[in-house]
Each structure stands twice: as structure tokens, then as C-alpha cells.
């Protein structure tokens, strides 16, 4: 089953986006671990300088260098990289032009600073360029790919299309030359069947709306949409019968009082009313969640739900997430 994650679908580049606060870094981490099953090697990248991966995996802040952050059962490895635009530019210049002294001169004249802070889109070009390089890199004697899959903890939904599409814009600006060629190759990978953009959301009005807008924007830009990943879904302790009894009034203050006595709990009116209020509040939230779930089911993108972690995210929780993500239904 896990083999189905990587090979048959052929997706090698997973871009994880989502509205702020929906937990896209956690999902990206869980996805990387899921993809690393069966002895695979996966690279998890971040591009926004937040050191979110280091916090997630509880390791020291990541430098601009690839290193292992997790080993999964079966010998798979998750490597991580915090991509830094300035370092990527110098590396790029060195790799393609063997600039040496000229590269240093560029730095001395403030070109690197200029290029990475203000020049239109260069930052995004460099970040996507490094992702592209890692996704295609081959090594060793057999010339196999270094990474079986690359997962990117990408910018939020509001910026994702612009971020991924930046090379198309560069191609519009630079009509010839190596940058144009590079931009074209990156866009070819981004738009290919080897790439999938996953949108993380929660079952609330604004994040769902943003995910829908994101799907439309990605499709308008010919970028491949992978999955909608609904994060932090609350598991309800109330089953269907309990919900029904609460909403039709079978369970009222009197019924709660009786049961509390049986449970050996002092049934003060404050407690009884409080439990009832919490129950109604919960029903209201469930109804709103259901509404959002219905909206999502109307979109022709497969949806995966991930439960809310009861005690915050830790490494054990990441394993659980990976298990769910590795289940049927993932690309």
C-alpha cells in the first residue's frame, strides 16, 4: 500500500500549502514521514525562514544544508533543508558559472542583497529553483535519484500560485538566456504529473473558502492540485444516539441530574447547566463542520481528514499522522 504512495502515481514533488494556522508544517512533516516508508529517502524543505521543521522534529535550527531529521521503521529517512534565498543564489552562481571572484564581487556590490530582497520575484525564483534541483538530483554510482520524493512546506494559500508560477513570470521578463531556460524547465516540472499541490485546511468557513479559491487559482495557472487535507478534525465523544438525544430534548437538565447522581457526582445546577451548554455548543460546532465538509465534497479533489492531536503535536503524533496519510487515498 505504501509503495502506491510514490511509484505508480509518479509524484515526486509534493507542495503543501494552507491558510495560516491550519498546521501545514505539521502536515508536511507527516507526509514526508509517510512517503519515507519502505526505505525511501525523502527531503522536507521549508522556504520561509521560520525554522518550523526544526521545531516540529525537535532538532537544532537547520542550516542551509541537508540533514537527517527522522528515521522511520523500514529504514526510510526524512532529510530536511531550510532553503535560504541568498545562499541559494551564491550556490547557483557557483554551480552554473563557476564565478569565483566575480561571485564575490557581486556580493561586495550588494547585488546578492538586491537580488534577494527587492528584485521582482528573484527570491521565489531561487527558492523554487533549489526545490527543482533537489527533486531532480541524481547521485551515486548507479545515478539514481538522491531523493525518492521532495515535500515542500510552502507559502500559504494566498501566495502559493504566485510562488509556484513565478518562473512563468520570469520567462515573461527574460526572453532569452540561461535564466529563461532554467525558468522554463522549472515550470515544466511544476506543471507535470510528477508534482502535486496539497491544500491544508480546517473545517471552518474562511480556511475552506481560501482552499477553494486556491484550487481555482492553481488550476487557472495549470498547476496540478493533489489533495485537500482537512486537519485538526475533532473526534466527537458523542455518538449519533447521544447527539440525537441532546438535540431532541431527551437529554435535558433533569436527565443529566439523574445520571450525575448515578455517576457519584454532585449535581449542582451550575454543573448541570454547564454540561448542557457545552453539549449544545458542541452540536453547533459539529453542524458548522458538517456544512464545511459538504462544501468540500462538492469540489472534485479527493479529501483526507486528520484528527486533532489531543495533546499538541509531538513526534509520536507525527507517526500517527504519517500512518493516516499513508493509508489509501494518498497520491
Amino acid at each position, binding site marked *: 500500500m505504501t509503495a502506491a504512495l510514490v511509484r505508480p502515481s509518479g509524484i515526486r514533488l509534493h507542495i503543501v500549502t494552507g491558510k*495560516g*494556522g491550519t498546521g501545514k508544517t505539521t502536515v508536511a512533516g507527516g507526509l514526508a514521514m509517510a512517503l519515507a516508508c519502505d526505505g525511501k529517502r525523502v527531503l522536507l524543505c521549508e522556504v*520561509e*525562514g521560520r525554522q518550523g521543521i526544526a521545531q516540529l522534529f525537535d532538532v537544532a535550527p537547520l542550516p542551509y544544508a541537508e540533514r537527517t531529521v527522522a528515521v522511520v521503521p523500514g529504514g526510510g529517512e526524512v532529510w530536511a533543508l531550510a532553503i535560504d*534565498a541568498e545562499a541559494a543564489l551564491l550556490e547557483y552562481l557557483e554551480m552554473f*558559472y563557476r*564565478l569565483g571572484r566575480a561571485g564575490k*564581487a*557581486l556580493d561586495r*556590490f*550588494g*547585488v546578492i*542583497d538586491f537580488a*534577494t*530582497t*527587492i*528584485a*521582482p*520575484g528573484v527570491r*521565489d525564483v531561487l527558492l523554487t529553483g533549489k526545490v527543482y534541483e533537489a527533486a531532480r538530483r541524481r547521485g551515486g554510482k548507479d545515478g539514481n535519484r538522491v531523493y525518492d520524493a521532495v515535500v515542500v512546506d510552502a*507559502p*500559504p494559500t*494566498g501566495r502559493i500560485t*504566485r510562488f509556484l508560477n513565478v518562473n512563468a*513570470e520570469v520567462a515573461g*521578463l*527574460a*526572453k532569452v*538566456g540561461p*535564466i*529563461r531556460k532554467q525558468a522554463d524547465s522549472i515550470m515544466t516540472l511544476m506543471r507535470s504529473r510528477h508534482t502535486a499541490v496539497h491544500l491544508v485546511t480546517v473545517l*471552518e*468557513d*474562511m*480556511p475552506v*473558502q481560501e482552499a477553494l479559491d486556491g484550487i481555482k487559482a492553481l488550476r487557472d495557472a495549470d498547476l496540478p492540485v493533489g489533495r485537500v487535507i482537512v486537519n485538526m478534525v475533532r473526534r466527537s465523544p*458523542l*455518538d449519533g*444516539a*447521544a447527539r440525537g438525544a441532546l438535540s431532541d430534548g*431527551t*437529554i435535558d437538565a433533569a436527565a*443529566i441530574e*439523574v*445520571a*450525575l447522581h*448515578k*455517576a*457519584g*457526582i454532585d449535581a449542582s445546577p451550575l*454543573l448541570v*447547566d*454547564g*454540561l448542557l451548554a*457545552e*453539549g449544545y*455548543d458542541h452540536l453547533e460546532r459539529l453542524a458548522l463542520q458538517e456544512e464545511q465538509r459538504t462544501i468540500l465534497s462538492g469540489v472534485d479533489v479527493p479529501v483526507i481528514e486528520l484528527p486533532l492531536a*489531543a*495533546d*499538541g503535536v509531538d513526534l509520536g503524533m507525527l507517526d500517527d499522522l504519517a500512518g493516516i496519510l499513508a493509508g489509501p487515498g494518498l497520491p
Partner: protein
Amino acid sequence: MTGPNRTGAASRRQPAPRVVRARTAALAAGPLDVDALLDDSQTHIIVCCGSGGVGKTTASAALALRAAERGRRVCVLTIDPARRLAQSMGLSQLDNTPRPVDGTRSLRGQGSLDAMMLDMKRTFDEVVVAHASPAKAQQILTNPFYLALSSSFAGTQEYMAMEKLGQLHAESAGSGRWDLIVVDTPPSRSAMDFLDAPERLSSLLDGRFIRLLLTPTRGPARIFSSGFGAITSTMSKLLGAQVLADVQTFVAAFDTLFGGFRQRAEATYERLKARGTAFVVVATPEPDALREAAYFVERLTREQMPLAGLVVNRVDPPAASLTAEEALAGAGRLDGADPAQAAVAALLRLHADRMRLQDREAHLQRRFAAAHPSVPSIAVPALPSDVHDLDGLRRVGELLSTGV
């Protein structure tokens, strides 16, 4: 690059400010008094900041509405409101101009509320048209680099939010149309980007590269720019000669404009530091959001910027006080086969979940308060549904005032 090592424009010009740190949590500031802040006629600018997804936009709209209904003449600058929230304030179109919001209930008819949504490209275009000669403006507006920079690249939103704030403030100072401006900050990767925008612009303009691009390629100046030939040829090799020509045209045409823009951005930055401004940091009771809030609070303190306090949004207090352990033990004593008992057992488990969540949230808030004892804060309960009308905003406003 933004990051902890990057300091704002101000700290470069001034000696490092003394950071006053209270020694013990016993000195902890009290709750954030939102109404006192809104009613203080000396409060002229309120900036809502925080990481993405914490409810900044809703909080700034709610603060603005509450201030207006308490008698202030308010303009709220929103950056990227949810569609329905925008519609509730009459912002169905993006025309970059403050418009009166219908349906506010102002105290004694004194207050008023105008709202606008930032259109960054339009703001940028307006700056160009206002500050460059017609011929030069035309040259800039059609340059491919300008088009890319003004419409689609990260960072521009922050510059333009700053620019628009400056414009609104100048207008209110001139006409007296508003006495309070509430600003929402752009949904950037970091809450700090808003503060760093003018500094980034300055560092660009002071950069030798820009100077070099503006230097005539012939004549005596050439002598001083040894190595520049190597750079231009490298750039041409990388980008193609036509791109370099476009960049040079763009930079040359922009030179005069940038000067004024930078001055205004710095003036706005200074105004943000002055009395009359209040920063309200918004977070949710989650580790990431509070961590970002902590960075921001530390940064504001370091730069001696006026921090009003922290709003901890969407806390979820239980309605009953039974402990989680008691609730779970009680649930275990009930008979699962009996429908009524099973339902009440489920309610007890639900309550236990909420108690545990509250413990976790309270722990995070205590940790923040211990690290930042001088920052007043208020916790605001989660609304079961999203806000998309004035009544909803009014309710959030009340919650901001009273807290949990």
C-alpha cells in the same frame, strides 16, 4: 533577509534602546483595557499585528466598529478580509478609497466608521503618478519590472500598507475627517515584515548596486566603478542583455520617486513609534501563534514602540468547573447500555476534553506572561461561528472589551 538578526531602520540610527525587563511575574501587567484605549482621544493609530490565521482582520474591524460606536471618527484599513466580512462593511469593491460603513450605531451621532481595502497595485500606481512627471510616470508604469514588482511580488504589500497608512494619516491631519485609524497588517510569513518594509527599501536604495546601475557607463565615473564591467557582463550572461536594459531603465526612472517614497516610509515608521500609536498583538492560544507574538512583543520593546497589549483570541473556556479527572471517573461509573446514561457519559467526556484544552491553553498563556510580565493581555473566547456582519463584529468588540 528578514530574521532575528535584521534590525529595523530606527535601531541603526539610534543607540540601542535600553530594554526594561521586570524581574518577577509579580509585576505582571493587568488586563488589557480595550475601551480605555479606544476612548483615549490621544490614540490616533491602532496597528493590529500577529501571525496568519489568528483573526487579525476580524479583530481590527471589531475594534474600529466599537471605537466608532463609542464616538470616535474611525477609518479602518483592511488588507485581505474574507469576502463576507468585507461585504458586511460594504467593501464589495476594491477601490482603494475609504467609504462610510452603513449600519453603525454611533453614540450621540458623534462617531463614524469608514472602511477601505488595500489595493496594492493601485496604491503603487498612485504614488508613481503623484510623484513623477507625466512622461516619467508613463515610462515607469509600462516597464515590465514595475508591472511585476507592483502587482505580484512578495513584500510590496507591506510597503504599500505603510504608504497608505501615511496617506490616511496625512489626510486625517489635514481635514480632520478621522481621529483614529485602525490598521490590519498584511498576511506575511512573519508579523515582522510590516515593520521591516521601510528598512528593506532603505537598504536597497543605499546599496552600491543601485548607485552603480545609475552611474553613467562612460566618462570619469567609470574609473571608480572598476569591476562594474564584470558585473554587467555577468548579469547579461545570466539574464540576457534586454533584461538588464529593462532593469536599468526601471531603476533610473524610479530613482527620484524612490527618494520621496523612502522619506515617507521613514516618516510613517517614526509616527508608529510616537505617542498616539498603539500596537495590539493578536495571537491564538497555540504554541506557534504565541511564539510569533513573543517575537513581535520583543521587537516592539527593543525599538521602544508603543505596545498596548496582547489579545489572545479564540480561547475555549468550559462552561462548568468539574475537573477532567472527576468527569472521566464519573463517566466510567455510568452504564453504557442505558441510552440516557451513555449520553451523559459522553457529555462528561466532552467536558473533560475541554478542561484539558483549557489547561493547555492556560499553560501557554502563563508561559507568555512569565516571559513578558509587562504586557497587558486579554483572552477572548472563541465564537462558535465565523463573523460576517456588523452584529458579529459588535459581539467580537464586546468580547475584546470584557474578555473571558
